[in-house]
């Protein structure tokens, strides 16, 4: 059974600081996603990572994927208050590309303090 674990589950940080959220998954996966969720809102796609060594950056967020270690990281650079949200990683199983069954991690709630 595919399991996805994130850590930390809660992160409080000061503006301007850097930090990394980790996402481990238990079995081979085709794709790894990072989503952002603001309180009471929907899931906004941030990144789709497809291959080993993939790195994508958007603004202050950078995501990477190590398929051998079954690990993805979401790195936050010089955090600002607007980044406060819950961040989810999600994976689908290898060979199941078209079913869309994503397994989500528990989410990491990020709170950026001024």
């Amino acid at each position, binding site marked *: 059974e595919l399991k996805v674990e994130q850590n930390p589950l809660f992160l409080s940080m000061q503006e301007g600081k850097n930090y990394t959220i980790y996402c481990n998954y238990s079995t081979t996966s085709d*794709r790894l*996603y990072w*989503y952002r969720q603001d309180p009471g*809102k*929907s*899931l*906004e*796609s941030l990144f*789709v990572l*497809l291959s080993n060594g993939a790195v994508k950056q958007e603004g202050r967020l950078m995501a990477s994927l190590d398929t051998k270690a079954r690990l993805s990281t979401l790195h936050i650079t010089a955090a600002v208050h607007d980044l406060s949200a819950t961040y*989810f990683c*999600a994976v689908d199983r290898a060979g*199941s*590309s*078209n*079913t*869309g*069954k*994503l*397994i*989500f*991690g*528990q*989410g990491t709630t990020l709170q950026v303090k001024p």
Partner: protein
Amino acid sequence: EPEVTQTPSHQVTQMGQEVILRCVPISNHLYFYWYRQILGQKVEFLVSFYNNEISEKSEIFDDQFSVERPDGSNFTLKIRSTKLEDSAMYFCASSVGGRSSYNSPLHFGNGTRLTVT
């Protein structure tokens, strides 16, 4: 930018009642999904739907649940006899699907908050 729309945004119902949650996926998308999120917990897959049939469903998606695409635009989730534990946020999602869209994510709607009393 096209988006997935869901109605209603909030539904309150009594235990044992039937509810229908509605979704309009993005128009050129071929794959449709329902996920749910119990308050404060992670997002859970319910069902995927392609070519007018269920592609995959989870253990949560038991006989009380059904999905339908009654016309060319709507995609619905029906819960026949709601239970207290069905209270959750239900998200509809869609994707283009297929090899050409291997790197495209699922696009989620804003969700319907279902409260069963």
